[in-house]
């Protein structure tokens, strides 16, 4: 579904992506793991078009989208969340979600009808807000919410785009562990043919969720396989997993 070929990215002398050949299959539940600074976030930025690659290409369903602007890729069904919340902080939760939904429905540029009268947008936003258990906070502004709740809005915005490929950058980081099931439940309700790539440091969550795991180290793919294969891989254990698995 989403594929990269020989993807490279340098920041000056620093190579953060080296010849990455990666495939995300339709309906995949794929995890991308790796130590801090391995280039995971950068990889997502390359996939979504926030950053242009130094070399290589990004293919969506076999079509080269390397040169497409970010907004165009979103229209083709690639959505992402951010590792650090990127929300409309002065607006309410409902407005945040509505903005994303309006863009997907193509009414974001409509000038005449009041946003509060668009039943289709409002209904869908309400559904998402419900799904992420944000109903209590719908009319509150983002800055009034605790970080963990904000994190859920972050997910809602991505889901509001009804993507075919969903890229989640450490979605659970900052969510109290008691609430992280909300996140997993929301992902579980997604249609089966959506491809989900999740970056996560919490190995528990990774092994619960992923059907396939890719390990990225210093910008290069270090290993890839099923969770069982990765867990059994000695080198992966020694570079990265270490105590996370033993303990």
């Amino acid at each position, binding site marked *: 579904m989403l594929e990269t070929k020989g993807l490279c990215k340098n920041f000056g002398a620093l190579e953060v992506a080296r010849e990455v050949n990666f495939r995300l299959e339709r309906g995949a539940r794929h995890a991308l793991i790796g130590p801090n600074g391995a280039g995971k976030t950068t990889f997502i930025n390359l996939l*979504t078009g*926030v950053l242009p690659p130094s070399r290589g290409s990004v293919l969506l369903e076999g079509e080269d989208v390397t040169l497409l602007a*970010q*907004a*165009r*890729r*979103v*229209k083709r069904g690639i*959505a*992402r969340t*951010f590792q650090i919340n*990127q*929300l*409309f*902080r*002065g*607006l*309410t*939760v*409902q*407005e945040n979600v*509505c*903005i*994303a939904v*309006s*863009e*997907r429905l193509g*009414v*974001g*540029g*409509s*000038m*005449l*009808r*009041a*946003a*509060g*009268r*668009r039943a289709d*947008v*409002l209904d869908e*936003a*309400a559904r998402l*807000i*419900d799904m992420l258990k944000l*109903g*209590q906070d*719908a*009319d509150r502004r983002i800055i009034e919410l605790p970080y963990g709740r904000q994190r859920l809005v972050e997910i809602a*915005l991505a889901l*509001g*785009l009804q993507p075919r490929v969903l890229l989640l950058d450490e979605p659970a980081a900052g969510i109290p562990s008691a609430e992280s099931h909300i996140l997993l439940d929301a992902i579980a309700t997604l249609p089966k043919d959506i491809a989900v790539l999740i970056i996560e440091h919490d190995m528990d969550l990774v092994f619960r969720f992923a059907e396939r795991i890719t390990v990225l180290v210093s910008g290069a793919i270090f290993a890839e396989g099923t969770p069982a294969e990765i867990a059994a891989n000695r080198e992966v254990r020694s570079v990265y997993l270490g105590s996370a698995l033993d303990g």
Partner: protein
Amino acid sequence: MIAATELARRHRLRWWEALPWIASLACFFAFPNYLAFGTQVLITILFALSLDLVLGYAGIVTLGHAAFFGAGAYTVGMMAMHWGWNEPISGLIAAALVAGAIGLASGLVLLRTHGLALLMLTLCTMALLEQAANMGAAWTGGFDGMPGLSFSKILGLFGFDVLYYRSQYLYALAVLFACFAIVRTLVYSSFGQSLTGIRENLLRMHAVGAPVRVRQVLAYTVSAALAGVAGALFTQANGYVNLAVLSLERSAGVMIVLILGGYGRLYGAFVGAIAYMLLEHVLAKAYPTAWQLGLGITLIVVALFARNGVIGIFDSLRRRIERSAR
């Protein structure tokens, strides 16, 4: 579960929204001797309102908004002077078109930048127009501008001149009302919502697939056209136009008005313009230095403590009361 209702209600008219208009009409009867001044206030409100669309909603910080005010002012001035075209309403439309076109053209190029470069570029655009007006003296009257312009009756009925304060005031009020209706509709539309999105988080706006630049340029164009209307009103009401309409003082002045009133909240322009101009009217003539000093200190205080202006203060008070009531 508490259903979200705030957004679905927000665009509805509230009773107090009638107040400014009732008050304006009341002023018409109550202060017949101050209608010329009242007209200037109405024009300033319109100008500040146009700025609110870009500054308050789209979050584009500009120091050159007077460029569009001036473009509108000169458009009607030149039409009256050279073509003898002095029908007021078509003059307003022409001014809106010219200013809007300039807004569109400059927006297309300028809005590719942001931050400091954008600030400088808007300033340069205005300075450029000012110099052009200064140079093309044959057309614009150069430094002295065009004095002694006269305009024909509104709709062929109401005398319209520097001397006809009454029709002037009502005319300006009607135009302001029409423009306000446009801005209000825009602000509460999905388009307006996406502008606030751009203001709040550009990165995320790209990530939800919004054509950010298109939206910004559109907002900039509409705002420019409205500022052009304000400028045209200025020329028509005063019967003259000169280089002062294109100055940094005017740009900065309208920004101050808007900020003091509260930006990004529609009625801030009203509160700001009325408060500012009343104070200026009373103080600036008698104690110009004290006025400047007070203004300066107020700005500093606003920048440091009260970023949302007068209306913002009321807002946060209201919010606090609501919370304690809950």
